[in-house]
């Protein structure tokens, strides 16, 4: 980026502009605290992102034979079943009512 360092100023004004800008920042540098804060903040973000990563499925569970054996019941079905059973138990079976 500093390939133009050797560029000669065209006139006194340009020379003065460059000199004054460089003098204004020459001995200034950021405190080491900035680097520490930056890396700490980014490290914290990376840790948080890792916590939210989905847990990968073990390779053996992706085998078709395994998937055939697995009986997957959606949770809402289980809840409906439990709820129906609870109702029947509380009012009795139809044969008992009649």
């Amino acid at each position, binding site marked *: *980026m*500093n*390939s*133009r*360092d050797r*560029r000669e100023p065209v006139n006194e*004004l*340009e020379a*003065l*502009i*460059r*000199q*004054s*800008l*460089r*003098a*204004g*920042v020459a*001995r*200034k*540098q*950021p*405190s080491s605290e*900035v*680097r520490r*804060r*930056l*890396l700490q*903040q*980014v*490290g914290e*973000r*990376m840790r948080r992102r890792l916590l939210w990563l989905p847990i990968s499925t073990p390779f053996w569970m992706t085998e078709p034979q395994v998937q055939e054996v697995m009986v997957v019941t959606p949770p809402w079905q289980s809840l409906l079943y439990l709820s129906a059973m609870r109702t029947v138990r509380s009012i009795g079976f139809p044969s008992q009512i009649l």
Partner: protein
Amino acid sequence: MALSQDARLIQKLQSGDLEALGQLYDAYRLPVYRTALAITRDPDAAEDILQEVFLRLNTYVDRVDTSLPLAPWLYRIAVNLSYTWVTRLNKWRVPLENFIDKLIAPARHNPEPVAEQNDDLRRMQAAIEQLPLNQRIVIVLYYLNDLSLQEMADILGCPVGTVKSRLHYARENLRRLLEDGPSGLEVQYEFT
């Protein structure tokens, strides 16, 4: 820093290597910090901008094109953040505070003894601070960072002609400010 080394560090950062970010920071902290400082004239703001530039590098690292040099990307973020900082400050600062700031600015921004500084340099620094912001930015990028007109146009997202025009008006304004004081500022009209 060689381009290939930057590209390697960016790829490491993309895979979550925090050390790579530290190395990129070490390589570019001075030019980025000094650019922000030259535009804002506030060391605290320049530090905040420096930190934010590298936070954004980490956030958007997947979008960084490793075949291109990294420095213009960093300068673009630094210039945008500096621009926002200065315009916000000018919006909220009341004229009286502005006046007081101008009075104490030399002492606050230049801790080194006044006697050490050349009078011409101090007058020029004061004149640069009085430039309209878009002119101050091109002056900083051209004379401090030694960027080409094309690089500046890419960073600022405007045509090369606009950059040339801003540079021309900035130089004219500086010449007049040195000769006539603050009344010598010329309004810039951009048609490009």
